[in-house]
C-alpha cells in the first residue's frame, strides 16, 4: 500500500480505537465516509496519480476503505451492545430493535399464567395421532355422528390423522398419568381440520385445553375456573353464561358463551343476532373416558375445557384475516414493546 495511505490508515484505526462516545463516533464516521470525507477526497485525487500507478492506487484505496469500514463496524457493534442488543448495523442510528412473540404465543402465556397459579402443569402431545387417541378414547366410536363435527386430515386412513382438537392431548395425558393422580394440566397446541383456507377458515388453528382429575371435582370448580380465565382475558366486567352443550368426551357438557362485546346482548351481525358468542366447549370428563384411561370414575372425577385462541387473538389485535396469523402479512413495529 502507498505510504501515504498506510499512514492515513494507521491514524484512523488508532482514532477509531479510542472512540468513547456516540458523538465522537459520528464525527469520525463523517470525517472518513461523509460526502466530503477523507475516502471521497482520496478517490477524487485518483486522476492526479500517474496512469501506470493508478490501478494499484485504486486497489489500495478500496482496501483502505474496506478496512476502515470493518473497523468502524466492529466498533459500532461493541458500542451498540452496551446500548441495546447489538443490532446497530447499516442505519446510522435507529432505536433498539425489540423482538416480539407471536400473538398466539402471547395469548397462550396469558392463559398459562392463570393456570400455573392454580397449580397446573403445562403439557403437550403429538400432532400426528391415532384414531384411538383422537376419537375412541374420547368416547367417539367409529360411525358416531359426532365425527361429523370435525373433518379430519388423514395421513393413513382410518388409523393415522392430524389431531383435530387439543382434547387429543388429554387422551395421551390421561393414559400416561393415570397412575399419577391428581392431575392439573394446561395444554396449548395447534390442531387441524380439513377446511379450505380463506379469510375466515384455516386448516390449522390453535386451541387451549385445561384438564383436571382429582377427587370431588364438580361443575362448580369448572365454571368458576373458566370464569376466572375469561375475566383474565376479557376483563372483570365480561358477562359469560354457561349452558348445556354436547361433546362426547364430557358429561354434563358445558358451553360458555360471552355476551357479544359489539351489541351487549341485543343482537348484531357479529353474533349472528344471538347476542352471545360461543367461546369453546367444556364439561365433566365422561366416566367412559376416565375408564378407558384406566381411572376409576367412582373415585376420581374431573373437568376439561377447550377454547380456540385464533379468533380471540384476532379480535384483540384487530386482525381481520385468519391467514395473517400463519405466515401472512403479520408484522411488528421494530421498536414497539
Amino acid at each position, binding site marked *: 500500500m502507498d505510504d501515504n495511505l498506510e499512514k492515513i490508515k494507521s491514524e484512523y484505526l488508532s482514532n477509531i480505537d479510542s472512540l468513547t462516545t456516540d458523538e465522537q463516533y*459520528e464525527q469520525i464516521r463523517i470525517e472518513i465516509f461523509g460526502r466530503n470525507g477523507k475516502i471521497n477526497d482520496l478517490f477524487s485525487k485518483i486522476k492526479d496519480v500517474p496512469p501506470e500507478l493508478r490501478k494499484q492506487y485504486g486497489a489500495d484505496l478500496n482496501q483502505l476503505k474496506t478496512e476502515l469500514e470493518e473497523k468502524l463496524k466492529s466498533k459500532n457493534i461493541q458500542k451498540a451492545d452496551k446500548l441495546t*442488543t*447489538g*443490532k446497530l448495523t447499516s442505519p*446510522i*442510528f435507529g*432505536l433498539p430493535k425489540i*423482538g*416480539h*412473540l*407471536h*400473538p*398466539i*404465543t402471547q395469548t397462550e*402465556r396469558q392463559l*398459562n399464567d392463570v393456570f400455573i397459579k*392454580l*397449580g397446573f*402443569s*403445562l*403439557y*403437550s402431545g403429538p400432532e400426528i395421532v391415532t384414531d384411538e387417541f383422537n376419537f375412541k378414547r374420547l368416547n367417539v366410536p367409529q*360411525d358416531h*355422528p359426532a365425527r361429523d363435527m370435525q373433518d379430519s*386430515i388423514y*395421513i393413513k*386412513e382410518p388409523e393415522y390423522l392430524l389431531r383435530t382438537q387439543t382434547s387429543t392431548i388429554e387422551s395421551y395425558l390421561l393414559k400416561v398419568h393415570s397412575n399419577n393422580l391428581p*392431575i*392439573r394440566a394446561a395444554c396449548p397446541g*395447534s390442531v387441524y381440520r*380439513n377446511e379450505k383456507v380463506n379469510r375466515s377458515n384455516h*386448516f390449522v388453528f390453535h386451541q387451549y385445553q385445561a384438564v383436571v382429575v382429582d377427587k*370431588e371435582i364438580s*361443575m*362448580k*370448580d369448572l*365454571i*368458576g375456573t373458566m370464569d376466572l380465565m375469561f375475566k383474565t382475558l376479557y376483563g372483570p366486567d365480561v358477562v359469560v*353464561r*354457561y349452558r*348445556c*352443550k*354436547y361433546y362426547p368426551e364430557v*358429561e*354434563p357438557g358445558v358451553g360458555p358463551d360471552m355476551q357479544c362485546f359489539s351489541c351487549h346482548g341485543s*343482537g348484531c351481525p357479529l353474533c*349472528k*343476532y344471538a347476542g352471545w358468542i360461543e367461546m369453546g366447549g367444556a364439561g365433566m370428563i*365422561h*366416566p367412559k373416558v376416565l375408564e378407558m384411561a384406566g381411572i376409576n370414575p367412582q373415585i376420581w372425577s374431573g373437568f376439561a375445557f377447550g377454547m380456540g385462541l385464533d379468533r380471540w387473538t384476532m379480535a384483540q*389485535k384487530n386482525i381481520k*384475516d385468519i391467514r395473517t*396469523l*400463519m*405466515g*401472512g*402479512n*403479520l*408484522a411488528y413495529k421494530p421498536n414497539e*414493546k
Partner: protein
Amino acid sequence: MKLIYSYLQKFLPTLDVKPQQLRDDLTMIGHFTNYFEEIDNEIIFDLDIKVNRGDCLGYYGLAKDLSVFYNIPLVTSISPEIINQANNNLSIKVNTENVNRILAVKISQLQNLNSPIWLQNFLKYHQSKSINLIVDLTNYIMFMYGIPSHAFDTQKSTDSLIWEMNSKYTDFITLDKTKLGIDKKILMINNASQPLSLSFWGGQECAIDLNTKEIILEMAIYKPSVVRQNSRQLRSTTEASIRLEKQLDPELIPLAFNHLCKLVLQNCQGQISSSFFEYYPQKNIPTPISFDLQKPSKVSGVEIPQEFSLDCLKRLGCIISPTIDNLKSTILITPPTIRPDIILEADLVEEIVRFWGYHKIPSDQPLAYKKIKDITPKEIFLIDNLKDKLTDLGYDEILSWPLVNNPSDLSTVITTQNSINTESIYLRQSLIPSLKRQLDQYQRYKLNQPQFFEIGKIFFKEGDNYIEKNSLAIYHHNPEQLKNDLQYLDLPQSNKESSFFEIIIDNLSKPSEYQPKTKHQSAYELQSQLIILDANITFDTIQDSSQLIQKYTQIIGPKYFWEMVITDIYQDETSQNYRYTLRVSYFNVDDKTAKEIHLKTFGLI
C-alpha cells in the same frame, strides 16, 4: 332446524312464554337457538340440534323436553293404536338385518292435489319445497315427529316391496332426477325388477304425482350407521338422512304413522286397502340404570333436592323403581325409549342438572391452588426459554403452515391423504422454506432488515413410523450477526455463512424449570407496503439521536408510524450546521396521506 312457535303449541297448548324467553330457555337446556324471526305472523326459531338428540329433530321431541322444563303437559290428539284396516296383506319382504322397524299400509282411491296454503307455508318455513299433497304430508309428519316416511305409487312400484342391501343395480335415479352410482353397501327398497328407493331418498321410478290413485305408505327406522355410511358414500344429504342416521325411537312410529295415515285419509279422500304390515324383529327395551340420588349434587357442586331429581325423571318419562339391595339413595331408572342417548348414570345426571339450571351454579368459585407434582415436559421449558432469549435479541416470532406444497426430501416426506387444500399436501420437513416465504412476504411489504424465528414441529417418515421433532429456525439479514447470536444462545454453528439457521431442539439440554415472560405486545396486519420517506432537518448543534427519533415519533403518532432511522448526519463546512436525514416508514396508509403527515411533521410545507 326450524321451529314454528304455533306448531310447537300443537303439542304444548299451554305454552305461553315470549319468543325471546323461549329462545334463551331452549339454548340453556342444550338446544342452541341462533335467532328467531317473524314471518307472515309466525314466529320461527333457528336451532342447532345436538348430534346425540335425534329425538329433537322433530317438534314432538323438543316439546317433550320443554314440557319437562316448563312443567306443562305434552298433548297429542292422535292415538298410537292401529286405525281401521282391510284384510289384504301387503307383499313386503325384509332381507336385511339393517332395518329396525317398518310400518306400512296401502291406501287406495286417493285424490292427490296441490297442498293447501298452510302446508305449503309450513314447508317453506322449513326450507323444503312443496311437491304435492301426499308427499308434503309425509314431510310434514317428518318435521313434526322427526321420523321420515315414504309413499310409493303402486301403479309404478307394484304391490311388492323388498328391503334389501343392493345386489344387482349399479345406478339409481332419485326423486330430483340425480343419477347416483350404487354398490352392494347401499340399503335399498326395491321391487322384483327395479330399484325404487334408497333408505333416505325416494326414486324417480315410483314418484307420487297428481295422478297417483293408490300408494303404499311406509315409515321405517334403520341402523343409523348404515344410513350414515350410505349418505357419505353417495355424497347425498337429505332431511331424511339427517334424521335416519341418528338414533330414533321405533316406539314412536305408531303414533307418527297413524297421524300420517289420518292426514292422508282426511285430505286425499282415500281408503285403507290393506292390513298394516309391521316388521319389528327386536323390540327396543331400555336397560335400567342404577342411579345415586346424591349424584346430581356431587357433580354440579350445588345442592339439588332429591325431590326435584325424582320429579324431573318422572316428567322425562323414566320408570323409577327401588334397587334390589335397597340402598337408601340408590334407585333404578328405566329411561323412556324416545331417549336412546340415556344409558348411563352420567346421562341421568346431565338431564337433572340441565333442567335444574346451569345458571344456578356459582361462577365465582374457581379451583383453589393445590400443590401437585409438576409434569411439564422439559422441552416446553426449553422452547419458552429460547423464545424469550430470541425476542430479547430482537427477533420476531412467526408461525407458518405445517402443510407445504414442496417436499424437502421425497423419500421421507409424509403426505396427507385427503387434504382439500390440494396445493399443500405434504407435512413440512424443515422450517427454512417457511422462513423464506415469510421473508418474501416481508420484502413485498418493504419491511426493513427483518430478523425472525419459528419454533414448530417438523415431520418425516422412518420406515413405517411417523416421526415429529421440535425444530428452531432463525433468519437474520446479517449472517455475521446471526453467528454472534447463535454463540450467545449456545447453539452449534455451521461453517457456512448464511442468513438462515435450523436445528432440531429435542436433543438440546433442557432447563429443569423456566418461568416464561408474559408479554403484551402489538402486532399488525399490514394492508399495504410500507411507505418510506426521507426528511432532511438542519440543527445548529449536534443532536442526541435517540431523543430526536423519539420527538418526531411522538409527533407522527402511532396510527400510521412504523419506524424511523437516521440515515445520514452531515455538517456543513460553511454554516457549521448539522443536517440530519431521517428515514420514516409509514404503514396502512396511502402515499398521499403519508406525504401529508410527513411534510407536516417535519415542517416541510
